[in-house]
């Protein structure tokens, strides 16, 4: 494969006009550099948005109570109702597509004053009822201790998990909060876990105190009622269909008119996620288009130069053909040069692009609110880019090469 003469020809042709070769190479280099950098940054954007979404189940939907808008079964319109814990059981039992379902119940916040006390420390935090299933829908990271479990729910235990802000305000830096007690709205709770929110969705913030939702219902005299719940569909199931089924069952259980969709508030989170992902896919696509465009400009530059090179070397190619070089060999030679120039320049563009993306990553690493997170160049993208370069290199050389052999050897020899 390695043919010294071939390489000698290639380098001789390219060295003839070094500045021109370098400038042409730069065109391709910048093309691939811009493509790679854009794709790396696009990846960074996507990583950033994905990290802010955390592990929030993207196939989820949220339901809340509204007033009825239609009279039904002798009941008036504008009627108020509430979800019950039995609704949860009924939904779980009757809808096989349903994966997780979790009520979202808020406790009292202290309003303008404080709702949480410990020794001489006090604070005002969000109180939320939760369940192990909630942790599947909108997960948190357990820093130490454990999360609320089924037994906590069943036995109405007075246990809580606290967010980082709670720990910061209610404890000294070197104190371990696990096993300690907090007085929340006048009642003492034992801290069983320290958590860290993974996303900013659904008000999952740092200043949170979570307790078993059953405990919350009992202590706040909510009975078995609640207003909001989240549900997720099993993998591969349609969220919209799940919503229809949930509505149907809830409507039956609460004597709501089967067409009164307004009576139950519903929001398809999956749809929003899909929109966001769609947006990022479009941005990614746009980046491809721009990068590719610049790359093609560079390749056209190469083709242009190959045209000039072939023209300049018409006589030389004529001599070679006179002494026995076959047309295929001449074409191969020109394509070799073109591919060599594009891939060589493209390779350095790729290397430089990777370095730039790395530098962007390093620069944004420390920042508290980065727009770009962990940008990187996909190895597949790099290979695709190189493949594309070789392909375009062939293309860029093909047209000039065809021109070179269209001339009769006698005319090529006479060419000055």
């Amino acid at each position: 494969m390695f043919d010294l003469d071939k390489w000698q020809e290639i380098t001789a042709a390219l060295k003839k006009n070094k500045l021109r070769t370098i400038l042409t190479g730069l065109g391709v280099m910048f093309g691939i550099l811009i493509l790679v950098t854009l794709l790396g940054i696009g990846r960074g954007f996507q990583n950033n948005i994905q990290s802010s979404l955390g592990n929030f189940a993207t196939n989820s939907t949220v339901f809340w109570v509204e007033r009825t808008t239609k009279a039904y079964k002798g009941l008036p319109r504008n009627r108020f109702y509430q979800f019950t814990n039995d609704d949860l059981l009924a939904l779980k039992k009757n809808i096989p597509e349903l994966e997780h379902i979790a009520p979202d119940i808020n406790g009292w916040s202290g309003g303008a004053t404080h709702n949480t006390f410990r020794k001489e420390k006090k604070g005002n935090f969000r109180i939320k009822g939760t369940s192990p299933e909630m942790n599947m829908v909108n997960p948190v990271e357990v820093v130490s201790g454990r999360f609320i479990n089924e037994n906590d729910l069943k036995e109405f235990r007075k246990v809580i998990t606290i967010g980082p802000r709670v720990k910061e305000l209610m404890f000294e830096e070197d104190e371990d909060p696990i096993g300690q007690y907090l007085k929340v709205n006048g009642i003492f709770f034992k801290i069983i876990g320290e958590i860290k929110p993974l996303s900013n969705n659904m008000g999952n913030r740092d200043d949170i105190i979570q307790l078993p939702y059953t405990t919350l219902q009992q202590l706040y005299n909510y009975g078995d009622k609640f207003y909001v719940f989240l549900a997720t569909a099993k993998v591969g199931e349609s969220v919209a269909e799940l919503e229809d089924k949930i509505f149907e069952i809830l409507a039956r259980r609460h004597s709501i008119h089967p067409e009164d969709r307004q009576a139950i508030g519903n929001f398809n989170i999956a749809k929003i996620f899909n929109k966001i992902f769609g947006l990022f896919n479009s941005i990614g696509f746009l980046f491809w288009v721009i990068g590719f465009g610049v790359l093609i400009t560079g390749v056209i530059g190469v083709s242009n130069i190959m045209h000039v090179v072939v023209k300049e070397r018409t006589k030389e190619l004529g001599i070679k053909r006179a002494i026995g070089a076959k047309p295929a060999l001449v074409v191969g030679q020109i394509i070799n040069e073109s591919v060599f120039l594009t891939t060589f320049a493209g390779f350095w563009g790729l290397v430089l692009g990777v370095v730039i993306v790395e530098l962007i990553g390093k620069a944004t690493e420390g920042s508290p609110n980065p727009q770009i997170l962990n940008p990187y160049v996909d190895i597949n993208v790099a290979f695709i880019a190189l493949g594309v370069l070789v392909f375009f290199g062939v293309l860029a050389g093909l047209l000039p090469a065809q021109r070179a052999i269209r001339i009769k050897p006698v005319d090529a020899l006479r060419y000055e």
Partner: protein
Amino acid sequence: MIRLQNIHKSYITGTNKLHVLKGIDLHIKEGELVSIMGSSGSGKSTLLNILGLLDNHDEGVYVLNNEEIKSMSETKAAKLRNNLLGFVFQSFNLISFKNAMENVALPLYYQKVSRKKRNSLAIEYLDKMGLKEWAHHMPNELSGGQKQRVAIARAMITQPKIILADEPTGALDSATSIEVMDLLREINQSGITVIIVTHENDIAHMTDRIINLKDGVIESIVENNKINHTESVKIPLQE
């Protein structure tokens, strides 16, 4: 070796049609040393290009080495040129970025001869031309006569049957011209057919047979006395 019958060739430039060769009949036997003479525009270079498969004829029959040449692919023509023919040009036509040895070895590259073998052969041929010490010099470091001898070595390396020389002495002084002509005669004596295109009388008279071309037709053929170059017999063309 070469037989031409009623060869016509014209060039079309824009709306003008230039009839360059108007029916050439010629027979060149193996081992002959022939010159094609004529003033510029007589069609001698066109004839040589057709003989050398660098150009194709419009009409007539051309038989080269018992094979009729007509509308062949450029690939086939390249192969024939490489195996059968050797070219020597007025302007030497050496590849400027290759040294003398590489230039000489180039035709063998197209025959896929290994680098080592073709380079040693090239040195051998350069040695025959008395240029062994110049093997690694670039063309621009050589004199005109040296360049032409490199070109002759390049034409010879494939052991062709025919050497076609287009004004081989046109760019050389008279002393060097005679050297080059002696070289071509030597080659001819080894059995290779040599065809030289020239417009110089004394060069033509160093060959065995002179074909005088005028306005695209053969005006006369002169058989030279092989022993004494100055005595020659003019043979009129048969009507």
